[in-house]
């Protein structure tokens, strides 16, 4: 059993402490917006926020997340509507298949929190998610759009 706080809500999950956070989120908490792509912290599809910092949830265990604020793609929007990154993604028609985009959006949201007006180089350094469909041009455009929103 583990107590996790996900998107401001507390969950008591029947899960071993060494379970990767990704699978606790997807299977035990039932939040499937966070995706499995590699399981070895390479692709970024599983990116969530841990106390506001972007982490690859396949690479950390449930026990490491206990007591921290976990935010998933489902918790990014507020009562006032979509997060500005989601909004920019909509307006720039970013996703192709979309499977990488939850992780991409979470990584970008964390970047903009720390660095509200990132340069192209900042983006290159911070955003290392894989997108097999190749949406990078729209991702970059949308990051700048969100930064200026």
């Amino acid at each position, binding site marked *: 059993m583990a107590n996790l706080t996900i998107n401001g809500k507390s969950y008591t999950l029947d899960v071993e402490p060494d379970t990767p956070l990704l699978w606790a989120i997807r299977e035990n908490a039932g939040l499937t917006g966070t995706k499995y792509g590699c399981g070895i912290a390479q692709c970024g599809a599983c990116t969530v926020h841990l106390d506001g910092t972007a982490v690859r949830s396949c690479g950390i265990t449930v026990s490491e997340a206990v007591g921290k604020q976990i935010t998933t793609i489902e918790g990014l929007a507020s009562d006032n509507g979509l997060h500005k990154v989601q909004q920019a993604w909509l307006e720039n028609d970013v996703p192709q298949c979309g*499977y990488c985009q939850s992780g991409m959006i979470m990584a970008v949201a964390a970047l903009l929190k720390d660095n509200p007006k990132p340069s192209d180089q900042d983006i*290159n350094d911070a955003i290392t998610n894989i997108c097999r469909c190749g949406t990078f041009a729209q991702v970059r455009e949308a990051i700048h759009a969100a930064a200026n929103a």
Partner: protein
Amino acid sequence: MNQHVTPRLNRRSFVVGAAALGGGLALGLDIPFGGPQIVRAADGSPEVNAWVVIRPDDTVVIRIARSEMGQGSLTGLAQLVAEELACDWSKVTTEYPTPGQNVARKRVWGDFSTGGSRGIRSSQDYVRKGGAAARMMLIQAAADEWKVPVAECTAANSVISHKASGKTTTYGKVAEAAAKLTPPADVKLKDPKDWTLIGKGVKRLDTADKVTGAMMYGADVTLPNMLNAAIKDCPVTGGKLKSYDEAKIAGMKGVKKVVAIDGTAVAVVADTWWHAKTALDALPIVWDEGENAKVSSASIGKWLAEGLESGPAYVGNENGDAKAALASAVKKVEAVYNYPYQNHATMEPMNATAVYTADRCEVWCGTQNGEAAFAAVLEASGLPAEKCEVHKLILGGGFGRRGQTDYVRQAVKIAKELPGTPVKLIWSREEDMTHGRYHPITQCKLTGGFDADNNLTALHMRISGQSILFSLRPEALVNGKDPATFQGLASSGEATIGYSVPNLLIEHSMRNPHINPGFWRGVNVNQNAIYLECFMDELAAAAGQDPLEFRRKLMSKNPKHLAVLNAVAEKIGWGSAPPEGVYRGLAQLHGYGSYVAGAAEISVIDGTKIKVHRIVASTDPGYVVNPAQVERQIAGSFVYGLSALFYGGCTVRDGRIEQTNFDSYNSMRIAEMPKVEAIMVPSGGFWGGVGEPTIGVAAPAVLNAYFAATGKRIRSVPLRDQNITFA
């Protein structure tokens, strides 16, 4: 609100929906439109015809038979229907008919398969007619109600008007009446010059759920009481499962069952996928790997190299006498190239969810071929068509991989062991990387001959290697030979060579290693464009001529090929000096019915680090349905193609694929993305594909630019084998 409707997961509502479709639907393919009896969608709204459902609130539901995997054809196909329907685009939503419904209704929606860049081009005609027929019926219904001649009524934006009386109504109000009408026998399509929606870069219809995490992919399917499965198939294709020691994982948390499948694979079923995978990793398994375990990349390479020199070969394109002309050539150039296996590595690994009982089997999955998936369900379940169903979901990438149904079959076989319990099978990334349907491996020897005036008089290309059709569609072989291997090199058809050489011989020596080949985005143009376009560059250099001018001289009989090449040359500024330290390369090809070209600008650091600054791409696909999506497909194809060129390549050791995840089979990141400038020059009169053709020009354009920068030819993919990487 435009939103694709994902299939319902509640089984009862599906059954009700299917029952509502009812019997008596004797609609043949030749009259693919509605009949006198109203057919209703699951929510009770009337079908005007099979393609168009209109709800009382004026929402237009357009049925999409082809699969959406990111390529955008769901939106493009809806544009085609909506153009003729003259409906309000903002009220359009889409849904997939199911493969089971297609069978029950005598394939009223035609072909579901989505590959070969055919999604739009091979259904554009009948889906547009579907939209046009629905519009005619809606107008007729309004005219009938108003008792005015139908010719006096017009429709636009989902509103029908009768000018003389000033009457207006909406599609939603007359849909019930329209659905009862006999479909028109004669349907005339708009002249392309009158299109207002086709050709517009409208936004995709499936984006909203993709930015909130709400989009449900196959891997996200959750059904009541569902269990989860992880699987390991024999690492050596052709090998068998010998034994496994179930006792070793007995009592591991969550484990429900261990299932052997087809004598080659073993799956663990557990409460969660993580438990299933953990137990599977702990399960001792003994494989009987068989003879194929002796095969390696080196042994395959040697076998293919022999095929370059000897043994039978299939002639794919020939004119004049290339061998004689080469024998008498004043100057000869020769080179050998190769292209490796590649994994599709769709972002979402293979998966399917199945529930089986003795009288019903249903599957939820992403598939590029709903009908093939349906056939796999029938075969694996042993149940007849009326007792089976496949619910298609939006795919987390396809690229050709999800045209195969191996994962669907496995899911059904596992579910059969647990009757009544839904089971979701997800492949680990490792399983996905090592059990792919790989881009085929080939080598190619090219020889060119010149006369005393440096005119190219002969070209001989001999390709040795794997045939996809031999493995996947043997019925498409011609006398045992594979014509598809000449994609981009043929004398006629949708993938022709753009050069006229007086003496030409292009042949294929088929050698099929045990590794399963598959259709991998771009298919055979990936290697053929590298072979031909890099060698053209070699020939130009040998003749002391500019690569563009050299090509142009050979292309006068192929104006469409030439036009796209000229377009990129002009835009990149060929002929004017590039910026300091920047070098350029060109390539062109014809594939999937479209003419495409690319021009790259790169710089090279220390001979080993390549910065791709910019690629200008042009395409003539006949018609452009959605330029915004075409632009994205071009850029996306470059990411896929350049990832394969720089980082890809699957190697074989002890009969198995060595690369197991993105750490050993890497993919481009945003930092490596060049600026892509797309030029669309649709010349009309034909329909070409979009998703694939441009992938072929990225690699040769970059390789030719590398030669311009360094004077060195690279004839082997991937570049990581030569310690060359992105700067």
